[in-house]
Structure formats: C-alpha cells, structure tokens
C-alpha cells in the first residue's frame, strides 16, 4: 500500500504536540494522511462515523490510531476501553504516544490492547523515527 493511502488518526489535545507529530510524520513518510482529533470523545465519534465525521470520503476510516493518554472529556484509557468493546475494531492498531514515562501507564495501556507504548521524545527527528517505525510495524504488516 502506498503511503498516501495510509490514514492515521492522531488523538492529541496539545496543539503544539499535534503540530510536531504531523511534522515528524511528514518528515518520516511525506505522503501519510494524518487526521487529528483533540480528545477521546471525538476519537470515538470519528471511529463510529458520528457527527461531524459521517462522510467517510471526507473522513476516511484510519489504518492506525496514535493515541495520547491525558486528554479532556475522554482520556486515552477510555478510548482503549471503548475500542476493546467494539468487535468490529479488533484489528485496528492503536499505538500510545504520550508524555508519560510511567511504567504503570505502559503496562495498563498494553493490557488494554494498545499495540505499543512510546514516550514522546524531546526532539523532532527522534519523533520522526518513532512515527516511521510505528507505521512500518503496525500498518504495512497489517495490510
């Protein structure tokens, strides 16, 4: 699958971080299609195709979710919990990318179905490497 066909849903409340992750993704794989939502609740709407994401041509279903943990309304664990309850989403890879370095968060996220857990690095180049690795491991092999 060509990278332009890969849709990533980025769930991230911090606009600066959204900016960096998009930038890193661009650097890593220029043709990735990165869609962003600012919290867990909107992530759920997007995946459900609820308002305002009904139009799948405009809001294509993602191949991968990159999920922050600490967010308003519904946090990353809430999203993982919801996804785990949706049989149709069993194959959707979710990778956690967070500022947390807490091993307990990592263990909890992995036990709730996250495919991987990454602490956000403080460097765009490192971030780009991480995004590239995530896409390579969790999208290409799954398609």
């Amino acid at each position, binding site marked *: 699958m060509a990278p332009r066909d890969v849709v990533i849903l980025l769930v991230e409340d*911090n606009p*600066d*971080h959204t900016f*960096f992750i998009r*930038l890193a993704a661009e650097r890593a794989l220029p043709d990735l299609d990165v869609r962003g939502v600012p919290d867990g609740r909107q992530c759920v709407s997007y995946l459900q195709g609820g308002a305002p994401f009904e139009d799948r041509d405009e809001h294509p279903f993602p191949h991968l979710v990159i999920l922050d943990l*600490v967010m308003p309304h519904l946090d990353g664990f809430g999203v993982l919990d919801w996804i785990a309850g949706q049989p149709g989403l069993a194959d959707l890879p979710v990778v956690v990318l*967070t*500022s*947390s*370095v*807490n*091993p*307990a*968060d990592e263990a909890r996220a992995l036990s709730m179905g996250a495919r991987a857990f990454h*602490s*956000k*690095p*403080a*460097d*765009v*180049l490192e*971030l780009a490497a991480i995004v590239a690795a995530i896409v390579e491991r969790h999208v290409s092999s799954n398609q």
Partner: protein
Amino acid sequence: MERRSAFRASLVVEPLWRRLVLAALALVAYAGAFAPLYQQAGVGVSALSIFPVVILAWLFGAWGGLLAGVLIVPINALLLQMVGAPGWIVVLGEGGGEGSALVLVVGCVIGLLRDLGVRLDRHFTDWRRAELALRESEDRFRILFERSRDPIYISRPDGRLVEANEAMVRLLGYSTAELLELDVVTLYEDPSDRQRFAAEIERRGYVEEFPVRLLTRDGNVRESLVSATARRGPDNEIIEYHGTIHDVSDDRALHELAERRTKELQDAVSELESFSYSVSHDLRTHLVTMLGFGSLLWSEHREALDEKGEDFLRRILAAGHRMDRFVRDLLNFSMVSRAVVRPQRLDPGELVAEAIEALDVQIRERGADVAVEGNLPHLQADRTLLARVLENLLSNALKFVPEERTPTVRIRGHVEPGGRTVRIEVEDNGVGLDAAEVPRAFRAFERLDPTAFPGTGVGLSIVQRSVERLGGSVGVQSRPGKGSTFWIVLPAVQGP
C-alpha cells in the same frame, strides 16, 4: 551395727585428741586438787576413784570429768565419816556400791545432757538457717509472683482459684478476694474452653499458649494465651493447675494499629507516586514543546541567527535535555525503591550485552573500548533492577573519562569464596575518586564535578538502592586520576 555407730556418732561430739587432753587435764586436776584432802583424812588418793573421773572426762568432756570429781570428793568424805573408809574401798570392801553407782549415773546423765545440748543447739542453728533460707526463697518467689506483669494463678480442678497475683487482678478487674471466691468457668467467654483446657492438660500434663477469651468483671473480653502445668497428688490425680496468662488483646490492637498506619502510609506513598507521575507528565509535556520548537529552530533556522544567538540556543537545548533526563532519573530513582523484586537465575553476561547495545551511541561517540573478560557467573537477581544497575555502571564508566582519553572499560566477575555470592566488577580508566568522595558519589543528586561531566547525579544512587534491594552490596576501589573499579556483590545461584 548401724545402731552402734549411730550411738558412737552421738557421743563423738569432739575430736579424739581433744578428749585425750581433757581426760589428762581432769586427771591432773583431780589428783592435784583432792590429794591434799585425802591426805588430811589419812588416806592416799585411790587410783580407783580416779577412773570415773577420767572415763567421764573421756566420754563427755571437761565438764563431765569435773562434775564427777566434784561429786566423788564429798561422797568419799561422807563415806569416810560414816564408815571410816573412802569411796572405792567402801564399794569394793564394805558395801558402799549405791553411792558410787550414783556418782557414775549422775556423771553419765550430765555428760549425755551436755552432748544433747550441743547437738540440739547445732540442730536448731541448722534448722533456723534452713528456715531463714526457705523464707527468703519464698519471699523472692512471692515477689516474682506478685510483680509479674503477666497474670499468674494456681487453681484447682473444681474451678476454685487458690492464688492469683496482682496482674490477674488488673487483667480481670476482680479483687483478689472475689477471684478466690468465684468459679473460674465464669471467667471464660465460652465455658467449653475450660473443658477443652482441662482435657488437654489431663492428657499432656501441660498446655502451652492455649488461646482463650477471658471475661473481665465489666464484661469486656481479653484475648489471652494460657500456659499451665498440672500438679499431681499421691494417686497421680491432678490437684492443682499452675498457670500464667498472656494477654494479647493489646498486641492485637497494636498489630491492627500498625496495619492501619501501614495502609495509610501506603496510600500516602501511592498518592505521592501518582502525583509525581502527573507532575512529571505535565513537566514533560511542556519540555517536549520547548525542545521540539528549539530543535526545529536549531535544525531549520540556525542560519538566521548570529554566532551568539546560536550559542544561546545551544545552551537552551542542552538545559532542556538535562531537565528531561532529570525528570526521568527522578522517576527511576523513586521507582527502584518501590519496584517489586522478583529474583530469578540470570546470566549477567546477557544483561551486559544488552547494556552495551543500549549505550551504543555513547560508546561510538567516544571510540570506547568495552569488553567482558571471561564468563560472568550466573546469579540470583531481579532482571529489571540488575539491567538498570549494569547500564548505570557502564554508562558511568564511559562518562567520567577525560575528553582526551579513550575510555577503556573492562567487565569481569567471579564466584566469591564460599560460593554464596558473585562479584561483578566494572573497571574504567576515568578520573577516579578520592576516598572522601566515595560516600558522596553514592548519594542521590550529588555531582562531584558538575562542570566537567554531564548527568543528574542519580545513577550511582540508583545502583546502590537497586543492589541493596537485591540483597547485595556495592562499592568502589579508585585511584584519583587513574580510574575506578566499581563492584557489586549479589547472591549466587543456589542449588543445581
């Protein structure tokens, strides 16, 4: 035979030599004192009249001899007056036997009485002494009994208390008089406990820490452990129980208090822990933004800055990265103290290889020569903690080497004599430590030379705390300027 020797023993109050001397003295005294009297009367001192004196002195001592002599003289004098002949001549020749026999009997009785007196005196002295000792001993035991902090009692199988000490009075709230009146069954919350107690003591002769719930006078229950022994009578029937009671109610309350406090502490610690994680999360969120934009500025807009601006930006980025490391180290450090330790058989060689891989960038940057000498013996440790220890030790060994020197790091290990521990050493050619610096090196956030070497000063304290949690020890041998050898000692693999 026995009776005779007993009789002799009763006579022999004084030693033989003393008796001989006394007999001789009695003889001399008698002859010297009474010969003139006899001469006056116109007769010599009869050898016969000396014998009773000597014999009595021999048998009963000086007083016996003297008394015999004193009695014989008037008797002889009287006989002389009456019949004109002295004692033994009268006895032997003229029928004066009664008087002489009387003399002998009186002497004997007096001697016997004297001996009896001596013996009685000794007997009474011994008896008084024994009585005193007994009283003293009883006083001592009485004090022990009364002052014991644990209740002590003596009871009878019929349920009556014979003795109860102060501690028992305090425990149960009854006065001593009340205790001695009541039936002990009423002291048991569950009366069947008393039956079980009696049955067990009947079977084994004693009970140890027999758990019972005792009722106090005001109806409170005291959790107690009773230990008692049975005292048996002539027909082997139990006549008394001698017991002590250990009141564990307070122990239990204390235990519960300790548990509650521990729980509170654990809650506080985990609250603090989640607080530190959320603080670190928020700190990192902002750091990621600052460093993200900073690194973008550096990589894409550096040419827009002059030399000074570039220098400032470099400093900002360096400080930001240090802060990020600091936050991570801080979390690591606090995590080591609380991590659950799961010891398992480990090949430290494998973990060293992993650490070398993790430090690949650092090793290549410095062109360092890192090698393991020989095989490292297997040991018993928690994987995560040991991995962290080895990585920290290796990272330190690379870090504290002057810029112009190529870091050379050697890792070796051996099983220590006795086979119970394994020692692993990491030797470097770095700046070393002098003896005064060693304790500081292991203290958290102490940095010996902050300007020369980067770091947060947490690495060695993580090592020390981890090794302690693994039941081992850590140390360093160092020569300032030449290098250091850090060592850890951990439990060896036991059994096959």
